[in-house]
């Protein structure tokens, strides 16, 4: 009746797991960068855009934020081919994750933009700066500094959420874990090891983001 814990089988597959880890990191990085760019554009659109643009971006944000990531992923990977758009698993994963993070980033950045007091903008106007110049020199840096913690948390959440792409057989860390499980049947060991791996990744990412904050936003 006793179960013999055997972590050796799990660790023996470390190269395989490493490949999965690499893809997880790639997916995370690409999605974070692209999602952030979408977020900046989206937030600017929501604060300064015309009514049509505002509604469009608001709809995008609400639809993404009120539906699960896995359903978005399935729609893109399984659903789009019938509309003629075929992605391979890794690309579909990237697209889904980017679109997802883009919506959350838009909201977070928008809050940052709206938190800048009107008086700062007036000061810029009074000096003769144009709207774009005010956005660039007066608003965007303090706004970013303000919402950095929330954005950083969202990035970590995204990195963890990449595990979902294993369900469309993208070869990420979680998928690698499933393969190892199917070979060794060491469910408990493999998934606890994976959980620990993700935890290490999350802590590392948080640390790096904290470091970035110190470098960019803290005066020396």
């Amino acid at each position, binding site marked *: 009746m006793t179960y013999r814990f055997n972590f050796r089988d799990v660790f023996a597959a470390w190269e395989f797991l490493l490949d999965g880890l690499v893809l997880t990191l790639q997916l995370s990085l690409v999605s974070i960068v692209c999602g952030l760019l979408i977020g900046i554009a989206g937030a600017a659109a929501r604060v300064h855009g015309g009514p049509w643009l505002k509604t469009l971006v608001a709809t995008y944000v609400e639809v993404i934020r009120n539906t*699960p990531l896995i*359903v978005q992923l399935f729609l893109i990977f399984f659903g789009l081919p019938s509309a003629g758009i075929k992605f391979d698993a890794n690309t579909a994963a990237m697209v889904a994750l980017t679109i997802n993070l883009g919506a959350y980033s838009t909201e977070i950045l928008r809050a940052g933009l709206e938190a800048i007091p009107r008086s700062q903008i007036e000061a810029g106007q009074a000096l003769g700066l144009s709207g774009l110049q005010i956005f660039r020199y007066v608003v965007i840096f303090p706004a970013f500094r303000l919402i950095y913690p929330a954005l950083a948390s969202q990035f970590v959440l995204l990195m963890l959420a990449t595990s979902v792409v294993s369900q469309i057989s993208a070869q990420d860390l979680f998928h690698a874990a499933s393969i190892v499980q199917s070979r060794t049947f060491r469910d408990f060991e493999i998934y606890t090891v994976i959980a620990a791996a993700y935890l290490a990744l999350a802590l590392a990412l948080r640390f790096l983001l904290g470091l970035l904050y110190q470098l960019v936003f803290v005066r020396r």
Partner: protein
Amino acid sequence: MIRELALIDVLYLIAAMRWTLALTAIAFLGGAFFGLFIALLRIAPFAPARWLGAAYVNAVQGTPLLAWLFVFFFGLSIVGVTVSPWIAAAAAYSIYAGAFLGEIWRGCLQAIPQTQWEAGASLGLSFSAQLRYIIVPQAFRLAIPPTVGFLVQLIKNTSLAAVVGFIELTREGQLTTATTFRPFTVYLIVAALYFALCFPLTQVSRRLERRLHVAR
């Protein structure tokens, strides 16, 4: 055998929502239980307790929910502990929700100014009495909007249970896709159904938040 997508399929999908809601309710109850405990741990005047609470929160918030689901669904049974799917799901989601709710509620408790605690202490109240009569009632009001917001997250996260074979809306969507071969339409409907559940709650949470700020 491939079948045409019919109204009956849509009805089955809608019916599957009840499992989504049931799972959400269980997750929330379990999470609330853990969360309250964690929140109190984290503000305890006893450093090891705070450390323990922080460690729990960081551990759970730093791991994917999928990992917890797999550990409880597959890991436990391999080790020899048999659990029903509902127990496994309840355990995984409660641990997950407990960490997040604990954080939210801790934030609300800490948002109550130190002066409130001092006023209670000056009146001779013990820590637990201050907590019970002064702090928690105020923190409760603060906590409602973000808690409702998290409920939306929970509803969306129940979709992951499909991965371990648990029958709820997303799983039903997968099964329907398998028989009708219409993934685009099916998943669009599934997304719309989640949206119908989540969006109203999101709006409620926003309205509550606005009302809270106006009242302060």
